[in-house]
């Protein structure tokens, strides 16, 4: 052992200056180029790409609680691109590609792990829909194929192939499917953004949007008033509430989505597994815990309470898929508020207010889009509202022209 190390081991002082990954909340200035409302994954990713690719660093992220404490912390960390529509597949594929190199880019481990995602079909209709999804995905360069029950049994030997007397007929095997530590994604983006000069203001709540005519020019917060050139709203479940403050309506309904996690066990489950008929998705985290979630609550609500009904039904479905789970202890259970659109696609781009940009409608599928969302929203803001082609199909005015992008068939659970 080098004796130099022993010297440090016995010394009282740590030999290097320790830079914290994130600076403390600075004083709020009166003017910024860009204000981003919402310090979750999408908001900090937007700030990061604004600073990195567009040289815009006079940016404030306003977060009413703490960094990544909303749906960024509450999702089940599934990354995949096996959607149904060409618009959706193109968009989410870009996100998967960005996720693959994030740890290197940040120099911060997001624990990205590409283990593949398997969706089970229990009816002929689902098998037909899976065939279409596999074709659309392959066409756009993704790795998705239809596999038979023998292949499924090889991939996941612990899976019950006849859950709830609904035999598994086939599986949609998505090799690009992955998981990552969701908190670390927000932390990595925040670290990269603040290092480039972006200010992260935690415990800073937006109370009002200041307008001049049809143009947004600033925000009032609990820490003072800020003027800016552009505003981005990325507030997930509370999108409609904030839009209401800004003076317009969004075609969103907010539902709670509940999920839970068990005690950690030895690694046994490599792919992420979901069942289309049981409305349940299960994955084992890098720490060994089983995370599982299902469909949204049956009626709209702005409340993250837990219900016994959902615990009962979700656990029943998870135990049908993996019967030995009945022996396991539940560790935690939680809910997040999801802002659902009627076509299950997001709302990105322009709003009725000039210089006020929307990143909303992320319902239950927001985490997997974090990188590409940040990149396209940054491009939109930097180009003064010129909408990037990739997000043009997700414009708010698609609802007024009946041009929805129907992703309903492509979700892992009922939603």
């Amino acid at each position, binding site marked *: 052992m080098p004796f130099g190390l022993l010297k440090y081991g016995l010394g009282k002082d740590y030999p290097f200056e320790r830079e914290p990954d994130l600076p403390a909340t600075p004083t709020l200035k009166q003017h910024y180029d860009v204000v981003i409302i919402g310090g979750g994954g999408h908001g900090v990713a937007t700030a990061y790409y604004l600073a990195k690719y567009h040289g815009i660093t006079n940016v404030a992220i306003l977060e009413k609680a703490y960094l990544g404490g909303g749906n960024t912390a509450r999702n089940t960390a599934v990354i995949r691109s096996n959607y149904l529509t060409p618009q959706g597949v193109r968009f989410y594929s870009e996100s998967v590609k960005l996720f693959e190199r994030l740890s290197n880019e940040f120099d911060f481990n997001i624990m990205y792990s590409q283990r593949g995602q398997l969706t089970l079909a229990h009816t002929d209709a689902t098998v037909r829909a899976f065939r279409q999804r596999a074709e659309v995905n392959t066409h756009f360069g993704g790795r998705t194929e239809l596999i038979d029950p023998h292949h499924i049994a090889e991939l996941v030997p612990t899976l019950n192939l006849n859950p709830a007397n609904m035999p598994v007929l086939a599986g949609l095997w998505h090799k690009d499917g992955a998981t990552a530590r969701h908190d670390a994604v927000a932390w990595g983006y925040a670290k990269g953004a603040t290092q480039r000069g972006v200010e992260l203001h935690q415990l800073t709540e937006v109370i009002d949007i200041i307008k001049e005519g049809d143009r947004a020019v600033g925000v009032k917060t609990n820490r003072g008033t800020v003027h800016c050139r552009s505003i981005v709203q990325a507030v997930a479940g509370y999108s*409609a*509430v904030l839009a*209401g403050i800004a003076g317009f*309506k*969004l*075609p*969103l*309904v*907010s539902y709670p989505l509940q999920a839970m996690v068990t005690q950690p066990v030895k690694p046994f489950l490599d792919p992420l597994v979901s069942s289309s008929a049981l409305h349940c998705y299960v994955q084992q985290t890098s720490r060994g815990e089983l995370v599982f979630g299902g469909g949204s609550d*049956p*009626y*709209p*609500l*702005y*409340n993250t*309470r837990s*219900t*016994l*009904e959902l615990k009962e039904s979700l656990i029943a479905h998870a135990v049908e898929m993996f019967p030995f789970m009945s022996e396991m202890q539940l560790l935690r259970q939680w809910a997040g508020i999801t*802002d659902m659109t*009627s076509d299950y696609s997001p709302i990105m781009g322009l709003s009725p207010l000039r210089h006020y940009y929307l990143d909303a409608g992320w319902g239950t599928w927001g985490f997997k889009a974090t990188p590409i969302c940040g990149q396209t929203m940054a491009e939109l803001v930097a180009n003064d509202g010129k909408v990037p082609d990739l997000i043009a199909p997700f414009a708010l005015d698609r*609802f*007024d*022209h*009946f041009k929805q992008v129907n992703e309903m068939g492509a979700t892992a659970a009922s939603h």
Partner: protein
Amino acid sequence: MKILHCPLNGPRNISEFVYGGQVKPMPNPESATDTEWAAYVFYENNSIGVVREWWLHAPSSYWFIVERHNGSDTILRTYDPSELLSNPGMVSLEDAIQ
């Protein structure tokens, strides 16, 4: 289990009921423009406060009205839709009860 008081069947488990959307005034389908119709179909007043909603008691196929606080999940009042339909002014009150 959460209990919802059905005006026809009395207090029942909430799992017997199906949410049917907010009460909102329907524009005349014959004369409404595409934008008006889209606004009616897709846009809801998704703010936090007291909301007036359609609910269905599924086993008896009975539709009724629920007034509920969507922040605290408190059910304030349930009643037969005849009360609403006999008083057309109430339907357009959607924004006023916030």
